[in-house]
């Protein structure tokens, strides 16, 4: 017996140790969640939340690394970001991943929210998950907002200015609130935003995640790799600029904030009371989403059978889209002064926002009442088309083989570009390598199926 034990190789011993540890870990909360790895290609709609979480993790890792160089101070903030971007090896790549992952996270979160809304997922006892999800969405927005202000360039100061004046505009408690949140002057602002961005908001998000994540989580390696690859490719194609360092003595050019605060900016630019435009209306908008599960009493789950929720959802989505696009609009007439060019006609603006609600509700009720019954009939008549397509084993090996070769090539180009100082090109090829990994991971899964059937 003793001999046998000894003859075991190091590798199998390590495997034993691994099994032993996993056996113990299974008793912890770590395994209270069940990770489901899908066996075949699934629509990502079912796990958009997981993809959002993955971008959050990517942001956490790259963010921590950026902390090695970034300094939250009035005189050094911009220069340290420039240092990371221009001088620190691999810094440009990390900064771009961090930036584009934040955009991806916001987009995925919005997509996730509306998919859940239209598919009625908040029914069947998921109200808590829905409410924490909406709060997480708001926190994601604040996290992105505090993050992009840390660079202290002109755009950042524009956004800080918007945030500060909104906070101050809150009746009664506004000025005190501003003192707590922003402190006094730029040196405090940048330090406070740093603390919010790096510690307070992420910790709140992690706490909320414990009551937002469902017990069964779908983790799909190919789709995760596609998202990560897309972030890298976006970083290579559209590297985020440094912008112009803020200088209070130099007039800034026309500056439009990041797309996700554009709708807020548009609301403020209508010139009505700042508190109403920038605080009250957005708060009402958030409440609007929070209460949807509680006013949607319809029985069905499909969006076609829930005209109220569908109408409200479409209206919300359209309002976000319209205000965001409107926020980009600057009167092109250069003879006017800048302030006048930036004004948005309030009557037109708010009429459009109200009309959107009316039209969406009319449309969704109309659809459910008049069109949906006919569609339903027709669907019943037409059987679902069945597609079946089988790969042979050799075809599979051919795919896997060429994908590996392609990936080696992509890695080679990525390294070569990086060494030659072309970080953007390197990012694109790193992204391609990740997407090739996604292809391979998918076909390995197909391979498992083939083996099982044999």
């Amino acid at each position: 017996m003793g001999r046998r034990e000894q003859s075991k190789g190091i590798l199998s011993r390590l495997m034993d140790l691994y099994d032993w540890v996993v056996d113990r870990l299974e008793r912890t909360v770590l395994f209270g969640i069940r990770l489901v790895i899908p066996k075949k290609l699934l629509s990502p709609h079912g796990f958009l939340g997981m993809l959002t979480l993955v971008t959050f993790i990517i942001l956490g890792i790259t963010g921590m690394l950026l902390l090695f160089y970034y300094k939250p101070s009035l005189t050094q903030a911009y220069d340290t970001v420039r240092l990371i971007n221009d001088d620190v090896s691999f810094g440009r790549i990390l900064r771009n991943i961090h930036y584009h992952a934040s955009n991806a996270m916001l987009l995925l979160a919005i997509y996730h929210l509306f998919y859940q809304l239209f598919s009625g997922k908040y029914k069947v006892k998921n109200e808590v998950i829905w409410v924490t999800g909406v709060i997480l969405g708001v926190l994601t927005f604040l996290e992105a907002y505090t993050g992009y202000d840390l660079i202290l360039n002109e755009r950042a100061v524009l956004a800080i200015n918007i945030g500060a004046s909104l906070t101050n505009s809150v009746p009664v408690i506004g000025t005190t609130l501003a003192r707590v949140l922003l402190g006094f002057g730029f040196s405090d602002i940048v330090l406070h935003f740093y603390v919010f961005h790096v510690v307070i908001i992420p910790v709140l998000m992690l706490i909320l995640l414990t009551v937002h994540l469902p017990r069964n989580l779908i983790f799909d390696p190919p789709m995760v790799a596609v998202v990560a690859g897309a972030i890298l490719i976006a970083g290579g194609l559209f590297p985020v600029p440094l912008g112009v360092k803020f200088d209070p003595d130099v007039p800034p050019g026309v500056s439009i904030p990041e797309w996700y605060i554009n709708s807020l900016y548009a609301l403020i630019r209508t010139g009505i009371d700042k508190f109403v435009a920038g605080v009250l209306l957005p708060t009402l908008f958030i409440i609007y989403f929070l209460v949807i599960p509680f006013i949607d009493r319809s029985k069905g789950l499909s969006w076609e059978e829930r005209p109220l929720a569908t109408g409200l959802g479409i209206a919300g989505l359209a309002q976000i889209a319209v205000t965001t696009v409107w926020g980009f609009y600057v009167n092109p007439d250069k003879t006017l002064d800048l302030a006048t060019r930036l004004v948005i006609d309030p009557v037109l603006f708010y009429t459009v926002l109200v009309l959107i609600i009316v039209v969406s509700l009319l449309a969704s009720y109309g659809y459910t009442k008049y069109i949906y019954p006919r569609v339903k009939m027709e669907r019943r008549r037409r059987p679902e088309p069945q597609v079946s397509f089988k790969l042979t084993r050799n075809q599979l090996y051919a795919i896997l083989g060429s994908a590996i070769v392609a990936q080696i090539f992509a890695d080679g180009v990525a390294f070569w570009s990086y060494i030659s100082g072309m970080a953007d090109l390197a990012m694109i090829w790193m992204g391609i390598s990740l997407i090739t990994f996604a292809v391979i991971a998918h076909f390995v899964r197909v391979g498992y199926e083939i083996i099982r059937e044999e």
Partner: protein
Amino acid sequence: MKRRKFLKTVMGISGILAVTPFVPIKDYLITNVSFEFTRQKIGNINELPPGSRKIYTYPVTGNPELDGDPFRKFLLLRLPDGSLKSYSAVCLHLWCLVDYKSERNQIECPCHGSIYDPNTGIAIRGPASLQFNKTLPEVKIEVEENGDIYANGVVGVIGYGKEGAV
């Protein structure tokens, strides 16, 4: 049953009493160490002929990082009629630094052309004048017999306006 309720109440009261001493934590959150607008000498009237201005830092800390902050930059004006006025130099529009132009006797912002009345600090033209809050925060000024000028407190919120005064 009654006794149990009593015990619970005692514990509840005790719990509240244990937390109450932490209420002043609000003083920690409302930061004030780095900028108390205490009395500080900012110049002498003899160095300021009528129709001139001086830019000064208030409150001075000695830390160049803090003293360079636009929020600590103020204008001390000697108007043509000889009177003294002092305002925050942070434009209420988008936080550029304003300056006094004696030729036109007005406070001007280099960025988007906001113009303030030097007698009142109220924006009379440009984007700042369109806002609800359009009056520059004003510094309370004291002049000693020997002509020394002292700043002693600010009315209003820097970067937001005198309207935000608490």
